[in-house]
């Protein structure tokens, strides 16, 4: 993991002091709420329906147990005993008092954390594959690059007041678990024919009211040019991006209106002028950052584990857990364990302070002290010995964290919606809760197989509904909430925006409607191996539309 040195530590402490000064000016009335708003947003402080919210950055989703324990203590001391893990690998506290924020930030700084640029029209927390450094299919660990980008983008003097927010994501594997094509800049680490490392560069993806899949503007960018190229993209965007209409201000609109080619040319021209100067990354500096992310000392182990096999044979609950929540690891004898934050009937992504402490303990014992936050709002134990998986399962179960539903119908992504969010047009968490109740039966879930349901409480699409296999968008009409269904979306390497199937459903109807979609899938799949998305891509929306609307006429 990356560790702060004196410079990094001074940086965050100076930032806390700066923000403390700003909060003091707000509390004294020197700053009005209007003047304060952009300043607080730069540091992750939102004003929600009921209270201030603080969003804390978890760079590329990597945490140590010490950091997670500190987050638990903040949940206990400054919030109502829980926190909410978000789709951008951040953590949000929903019940924070403004005057306590500077002290919370001091505590965060003590464990090398901060809330810098978790909101505002600046470069946001850089996200990465949550299996980075552990996945069996990875070309290279994306986190050193994500860390280099985090540093470069932190309080960048030129890019702090962009037309709109700007999100970067990095993946190190061809199978994209970081949804890079839905980001403003998506980077895929790859090798060229000589074996040198570099990136495929995607620009202009985004969700919100105008969802767009990013365009690839570079097939191979050499590693050393990472920062110069990103600076070129950001400069073109900062100068040319629209500022007349905030709904058209994202880079996706600029790419769309300029045209992919003309945009790429503008970036290349800017890059040509920046290349080979102060932003060039020396290989030894990349290595120096890379060393922080070196693999832990894995033991040499056999590929099969008798302990695991026996537990699978003897304990059906464990077998179910292992079939969904255990993933292949690059080191033989190890696995990656998903800790589901989606038990039946609770808000997706919520974790109590006690649960955070429990995961921290388990990680310290069994996963080289490392925890990851996934953009699917789960936690991940990246390096667990296969022999230890049964013990990890037991410990997770004690903490109410062993739901065996990773990637299944109840592993739902949902934004906070009308329960918290001032922009919401409908509730989303209660829909997620009712869906998990409807599909609570585990045999049924496992029979249905891979399925991503994603729910947003308004068109801003924080819940990624556009890229849900089944997407649900909460809207409002004449004081009534209603829900629109999209089908066939996907955020992975075959990135697709879901299609609207037809008129929306009332809050009372929506769970039945989703069940109808799923039953339709079960009826038409060629075999249990053909998952929902594959089946949808084969047959299209017609059978689903028919099933949903035929009865109504």
């Amino acid at each position: 993991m990356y560790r702060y040195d004196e410079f990094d530590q001074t940086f965050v402490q100076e930032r806390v002091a700066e923000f403390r000064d700003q909060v003091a000016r707000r509390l004294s009335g020197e700053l009005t709420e209007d003047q304060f708003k952009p300043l607080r947003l730069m540091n992750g402080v939102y004003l929600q329906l009921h209270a201030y919210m603080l969003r804390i950055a978890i760079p590329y989703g990597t945490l140590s147990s010490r950091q997670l324990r500190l987050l638990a203590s903040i949940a206990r001391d400054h919030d109502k005993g829980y926190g909410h893990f978000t789709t951008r690998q951040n953590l949000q506290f929903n019940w924070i008092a403004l005057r306590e924020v500077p002290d919370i930030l001091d505590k965060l700084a003590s464990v090398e954390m901060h809330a810098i640029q978790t909101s505002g029209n600046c470069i946001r927390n850089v996200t990465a594959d949550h299996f980075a450094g552990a996945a069996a299919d990875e070309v290279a660990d994306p986190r050193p690059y994500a860390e280099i980008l985090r540093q470069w983008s932190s309080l960048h003097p030129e890019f702090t007041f962009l037309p709109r927010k700007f999100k970067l994501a990095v993946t190190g594997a061809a199978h994209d678990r970081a949804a890079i094509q839905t980001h403003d800049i998506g980077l895929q680490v790859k090798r060229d024919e000589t074996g040198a490392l570099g990136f495929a560069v995607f620009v202009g993806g985004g969700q919100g009211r105008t969802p767009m899949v990013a365009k690839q503007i570079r097939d191979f960018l050499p590693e050393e040019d990472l920062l110069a190229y990103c600076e070129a993209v950001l400069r073109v965007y900062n100068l040319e991006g629209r500022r007349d209409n905030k709904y058209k201000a994202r880079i996706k609109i600029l790419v769309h209106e300029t045209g992919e080619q003309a945009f790429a040319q503008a970036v290349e021209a800017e890059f040509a002028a920046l290349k080979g100067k102060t932003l060039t990354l020396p290989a030894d500096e990349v290595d120096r950052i890379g060393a922080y992310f070196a693999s832990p000392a894995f033991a040499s182990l056999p590929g099969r584990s008798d302990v695991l096999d026996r537990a699978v044979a003897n304990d059906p609950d464990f077998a179910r857990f292992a079939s969904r929540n255990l993933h292949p690891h690059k080191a033989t004898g190890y696995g990656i364990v998903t800790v589901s934050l989606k038990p039946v009937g609770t808000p997706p992504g919520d974790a109590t302070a006690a649960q955070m402490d429990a995961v921290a303990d388990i990680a310290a014992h069994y996963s080289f002290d490392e925890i990851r936050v996934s953009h699917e709002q789960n936690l991940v134990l990246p390096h667990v010995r296969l022999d230890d998986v049964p013990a990890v399962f037991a410990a997770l179960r004690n903490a109410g964290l062993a739901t065996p539903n990773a990637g299944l119908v109840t592993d739902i992504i949902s934004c906070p919606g009308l329960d918290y969010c001032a922009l919401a047009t409908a509730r989303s968490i209660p829909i997620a809760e009712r869906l998990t109740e409807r599909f609570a039966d585990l045999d049924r879930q496992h029979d249905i197989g891979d399925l991503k349901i994603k729910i947003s409480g308004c068109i801003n699409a924080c819940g990624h509904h556009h890229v849900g296999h089944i997407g649900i968008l909460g809207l409002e009409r004449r004081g009534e909430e209603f829900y629109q269904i999209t089908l066939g979306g996907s955020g992975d390497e075959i990135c697709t925006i879901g299609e609207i199937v037809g008129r929306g459903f009332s809050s009372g109807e929506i769970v039945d409607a989703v069940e109808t979609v799923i039953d339709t899938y079960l009826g038409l799949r060629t075999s249990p191996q053909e998952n929902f998305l594959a089946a949808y891509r084969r047959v299209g929306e017609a059978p689903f539309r028919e099933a949903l609307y035929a009865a109504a006429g």
Partner: protein
Amino acid sequence: MALYRNGTFVTDAWSFPPDNAPLPAAGAVALTKARFLAERDALRDRTAPVGVVLVAGDTLDGLVDDLPNLALVAIRFPKYSDGRPYSLARLLRDRHGFAGEVRATGDVLRDQVALMLRAGFDALEVTHPGTIAALRQNNIVAVRHHYQPASAEASETRPGPRPWRRVSAALS
């Protein structure tokens, strides 16, 4: 209004005649980009310094060849959350080696002063009373450790080991 340059408040020797007003016979004048381009040839005969005023949204197109003859480029922030002037200032300094004064005007506030100085502005035209007071009292709390080279290379140090780190002196 007060002009803050290189760490202190100074009197402003520049005049900013409106587009339709005749130019004063003597003294430093700064003109809008459109007027400067239209009267460029006549302006060559002036002995006093000439400058250009840009607003966010203007580009440097058409001006680049004249930069060596300009003593001032003022860039206006229509509101502080409009970040385009930062890129313009950086292009002036880094791309075109502009050595004259780069002045921030418009919505110049204390919370952005440090960013402006790093982006290559060396003069700030300030109207906001709180900001004037904070600059006078040397009471601006800002981050001085930076993770990226910008356009204040001459006044920043480079602590090892990473080549992109910079430290600026305290504001004063």
